[in-house]
């Protein structure tokens, strides 16, 4: 026989449906949102990973000046380094031999001529001929008659052969010396002579493109740069959201995200390279998940940059230069980051040497793992969701406590029934199971409905957020184990543990005490003495004392509400604040990162701009402590730290005298993000090498724009084994115009920082405001639940005072006023608690991503967050008033014992 007590559960659900509805809506919303986020997250990552094979994602690409011959591609594909030295020596010798031969021939002719002339002059002198004209004629005749024989004779002489051999030898030595000198420089720069080399065999794909001007509103002005590939490409393929690859020569397929930003769609016409094209497809290229035009760009630009596809014939009809870009895939895929880096390094060596021996020029080389366009979105997606999970767990915790307190009240109300059941033989375990069933059933119900919504509605919301930001492919929904654990297993365990603790502790009382309604654990022998207030005042105070446990939960709930409101108000405030303070996030108005410290000719890149100052920079990794939530658990990777080498007495970054090779200044962002302090020792390591460095933090630099450490340039060059005069770029207050564009990798200005914020605001779009209002509604609903508990608990007393003749407004003042006082006092105090908690939650959130983003809340928002809570409570009090009026008189009469 089934335990008949279970029949109470659905009835209890129906009887108090509005309370459970609010709780279930709460859980469904939170679980749905989290589930949707994880489903969207996992599905998108699964799709991106699937694209690697399905869409033949490159392992890297390189661009050369001229189209490569089949033989050159074959040699590059083999992955072996070419013997550049021998090639150049051989080439040099051939050229030198030609030059030597010509020079020797000319010299010999000169010498034979001179010998004939000298012989003729001697003869003329002997014959007494002194007329120069006659002598000249004699010389010419002699040369004409005997030059060839004389030349032949001279060439046959031992002396001549010796001289020629010496000339060749000298020339060859010169060639070898010149080649060696040049080779030393190149091999040193690219570490070509390193013994650590394993051939990286690849398969190479032609993947040419052109960069053209795009005019998407056809007003004759360029709106964006579009990178055009051909439809017949066998690598880095695209998937289509709408339409397909262009078929006709006047058709084009463009990036979906760009089309959305540009406000164009299927069938619209855009102008590319002065020609009109009809949009036949909206696509997502597997290697352009974000629209980074250059890999060194700080942020992608989905407005000003586009990727597109044309038919091969339409591509050929364009006029701009073709970028001879080749993509490659490794024959044996590397495993792990280090192997990826090693392989990419080996391939680069092969590529440089082969390009040299084929007398081509390498313009660009980008291994896949370093590509921003393909890695930025996945790594950003990977770091999401943890904060929302934390908020979900806190909420489930609050709901569990609400259940706990409700059940505790029910147990008190039904004490005699419980006593009877226990006296009749019901075990504690049976009753605990019975009281546990409601919260667990509600949790499962919330989880099931939440997950259904997660897999349907909210996953679309999550994916839309991604699609608002990135050029991601359309994706199929996958089963998410993480979603199940985070939205069902953990909330279920939380609910189980919290309620079990409450119920088990409540059930420890003997059946007899239940029968006697003697449930108090701490028996006070005397009633609390109260101050000599009015009767109603003392009555209220008694109510306050009597409901202390309920008020504790109410306070806990109010703190959580304030946490939610801080999040709702603080997130948009923080973004806005970040944008407004973008100027403080850079050291200088302009920060130029150079391709190297020397130009093509080996000359140091210099500028005449006054105040410009050299700096060095290098990226290292700081290991996050993934076993601690507060130190980076769930972040999925280490933190990237920029190490700056700064000039002495820098006008841009102030360093103390206490910095040296082992001591650095850390940016304020670094210190705040990881709770570091001056004197701490940090360990930074290379991302793609087994090499690490330890630095003591000697001081703090006031810089919130990034995770960075600073040292003197000379120390930087020593530590990282650079040349003494090497540097990475310039800080400048003014724009630098005297450095070749080709030498500049990227320029960072405060506008770039603003661009990042704008992109974030654009990505989050209206979602922030929707989220804000949802949180406010949730906050009001939570107060409703908490206030309801207090009225329910006092139902019997309220009924009794009604019988005694108290009016409704008097009763309201007795039972609502203490709650109101508690809410008002604690809404202010809870703001501070909620704010502090929010800082902690935000810190954890920031730890999941790279970089630093400070939480900020304006004073107006701070005040509003308390005001909204009070307005919510005022509305709930009105409902309470109605509730009090509805309590019938017979509640007290029926159960009097």
């Amino acid at each position, binding site marked *: 026989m089934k335990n*008949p007590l279970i029949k109470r559960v659905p009835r209890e659900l129906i009887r108090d449906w509005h309370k459970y509805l609010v709780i279930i809506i709460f859980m469904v919303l939170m679980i749905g949102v989290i589930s949707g986020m994880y489903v969207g997250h996992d599905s998108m990552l699964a799709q991106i990973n699937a694209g690697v094979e399905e869409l033949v994602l490159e392992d890297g690409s390189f661009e050369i000046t001229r189209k490569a011959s089949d033989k050159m591609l074959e040699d590059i594909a083999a992955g072996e380094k070419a013997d550049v030295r021998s090639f150049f020596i051989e080439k040099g010798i051939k050229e030198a031999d030609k030059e030597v031969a010509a020079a020797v021939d000319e010299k010999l002719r000169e010498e034979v001529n001179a010998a004939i002339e000298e012989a003729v002059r001697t003869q003329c002198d002997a014959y007494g001929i002194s007329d120069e004209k006659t002598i000249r004629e004699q010389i010419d005749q002699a040369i004409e008659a005997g030059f060839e024989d004389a030349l032949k004779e001279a060439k046959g002489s031992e002396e001549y052969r010796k001289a020629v051999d010496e000339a060749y030898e000298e020339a060859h030595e010169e060639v070898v010396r010149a080649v060696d000198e040049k080779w030393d420089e190149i091999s040193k720069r690219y570490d070509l002579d390193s013994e650590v080399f394993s051939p990286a065999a690849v398969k190479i794909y032609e993947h040419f493109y052109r960069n053209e001007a795009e005019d998407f509103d056809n007003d004759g002005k360029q709106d964006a740069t579009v990178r055009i590939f051909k439809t017949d490409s066998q690598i880095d393929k695209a998937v289509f959201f709408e339409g397909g690859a262009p078929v006709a020569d006047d058709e084009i397929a463009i990036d979906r995200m760009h089309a959305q930003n540009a406000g164009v769609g299927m069938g619209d016409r855009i102008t590319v390279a002065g020609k009109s094209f009809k949009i036949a497809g909206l696509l997502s290229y597997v290697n352009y998940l974000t629209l980074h035009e250059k890999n060194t760009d700080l942020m992608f630009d989905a407005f000003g940059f586009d990727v597109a596809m044309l038919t091969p014939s339409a591509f050929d009809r364009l006029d701009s230069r073709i970028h001879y870009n080749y993509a490659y895939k490794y024959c044996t895929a590397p495993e792990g980051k280090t192997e990826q880096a090693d392989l990419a390094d080996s391939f680069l060596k092969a590529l440089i040497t082969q390009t040299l021996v084929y007398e081509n020029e390498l313009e660009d080389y980008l291994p896949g793992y370093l590509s921003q366009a393909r890695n930025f979105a996945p790594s950003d997606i990977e770091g999401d969701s943890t904060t929302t999970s934390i908020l979900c767990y806190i909420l489930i915790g609050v709901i569990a406590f609400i259940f706990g307190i409700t059940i505790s009240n029910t147990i008190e109300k*039904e004490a*005699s029934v419980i006593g009877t059941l226990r*006296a*009749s033989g019901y*075990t504690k375990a049976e009753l605990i199971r019975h009281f546990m069933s409601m919260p667990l059933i509600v949790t499962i119900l919330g989880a099931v409905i939440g997950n259904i919504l997660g897999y349907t509605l909210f996953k679309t919301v999550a994916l839309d957020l991604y699609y608002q930001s990135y050029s991601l492919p359309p994706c199929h929904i996958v089963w998410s184990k993480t979603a199940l654990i985070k939205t069902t297993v953990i909330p279920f365990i939380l609910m189980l543990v919290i309620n079990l603790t409450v119920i088990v502790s409540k059930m420890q009382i003997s059946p007899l005490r239940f029968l006697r309604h003697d449930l108090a654990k701490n028996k006070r022998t005397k009633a609390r003495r109260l101050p000599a207030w009015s009767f109603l005042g003392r009555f209220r105070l008694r109510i306050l004392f009597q409901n202390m446990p309920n008020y504790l939960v109410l306070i806990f709930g109010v703190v959580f509400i304030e946490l939610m409101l801080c999040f709702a108000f603080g997130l948009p405030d923080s973004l806005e604040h970040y944008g407004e303070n973008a100027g403080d996030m850079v050291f200088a108005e302009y920060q130029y990162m150079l391709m190297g410290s020397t130009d093509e000719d080996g000359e140091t890149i210099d500028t005449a701009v006054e105040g410009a100052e050299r700096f060095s920079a290098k990226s290292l990794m700081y290991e996050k402590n993934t076993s601690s939530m507060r130190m980076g658990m769930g972040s999925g990777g280490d933190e990237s730290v920029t190490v700056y080498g700064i000039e002495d007495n820098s006008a841009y970054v102030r360093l103390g005298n206490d910095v040296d090779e082992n001591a650095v200044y850390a940016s304020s962002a670094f210190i705040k993000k990881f709770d570091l302090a001056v004197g701490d020792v940090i360990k930074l390591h290379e991302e793609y090498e087994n090499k690490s460095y330890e630095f003591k933090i000697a001081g703090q630099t006031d810089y919130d724009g990034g995770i960075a450490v600073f040292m003197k340039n000379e120390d930087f060059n020593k530590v990282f084994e650079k040349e003494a005069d090497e540097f990475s770029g310039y800080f400048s207050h003014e724009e630098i115009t005297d450095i070749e564009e080709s030498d500049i990798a990227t320029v960072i200005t405060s506008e770039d920082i603003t661009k990042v914020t704008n992109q974030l605001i654009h990505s989050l779009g209206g979602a922030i405001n929707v989220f804000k209002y949802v949180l406010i509604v949730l906050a009001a609903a939570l107060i409703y639940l908490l206030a309801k508990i207090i009225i329910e608990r006092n139902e019997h007393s309220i009924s009794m005072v009604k019988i005694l003749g108290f009016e409704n407004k008097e009763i309201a003042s007795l039972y609502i006023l203490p709650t109101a006082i508690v809410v008002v006092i604690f809404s202010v105090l809870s703001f501070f608690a909620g704010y502090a908690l929010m800082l902690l939650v935000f810190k954890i959130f920031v730890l999941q991503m790279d970089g630093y983003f400070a939480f900020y809340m304006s004073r107006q928002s701070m005040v509003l967050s308390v005001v909204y809570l009070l307005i919510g409570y005022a509305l709930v009090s009105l409902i309470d008033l109605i509730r009090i009026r509805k309590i019938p008189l017979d509640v007290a009469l029926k159960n009097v014992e």
Partner: protein
Amino acid sequence: MNKVFLEIRDLKKSFGTGEAKQDVLRGMSFTVDEGEFCVLLGPSGSGKSTLLNIIGGIDTPDSGYISIKGDKLEDMNEKQLTAYRRRHLGYVFQMYNLIPNLNVKENIEVGAYLSEKPLDVEEVITTLGLQDHKYKYPNQLSGGQQQRVSIGRAVVKNPDILMCDEPTGALDYKTSKEILALIEDCNKKFGSTIIMVTHNEAIKDMADHVIKLRDGVVRHNDRNEKKLTAEELEW
């Protein structure tokens, strides 16, 4: 010779300490035979409810012992006591203590669920005259009807012993007699041993065995030669 079902020996129990110490049971001894209808009679404060609670295993004596069918309750731990109550006892309280959101039938099933050999629920409902009310909730019933349900819940277990604590204390004369008749029926029909606590002197006449308590001790321990039916009782 009747078989002894319950044996109580020198049972003592007090509440409070020091000056506030109150001896409620002061060395109480008696036996109850199997199938007997035993009434514990006494004024308020005589210790009858405390005694009933100790017999029911929901309270413990300070000294002395109780044995049921030879098993001493003092040797039992909490789990065993629960099992004892589950197997042997049925409880009827003055205030019914029904579960508010279970209907009549389900409240009776609450008792049936505990038993390995429950009576037929429908049959109990019919016996108790609750056929027309079986789908009603407790708050739709009169006090007498609620007490019938409470008896049904206890009886349906087919308990060896039915403990009734002032079962008519909250009822009017007519309803009280009906309830007593039901308890009498249960005693006859199902052979349950009944221990009823009451302060109503008249009820003693329907019992096999009457134990009068005062100030925590047994003042009289009599067996009725002739007993009345519930119908014949007057007070």
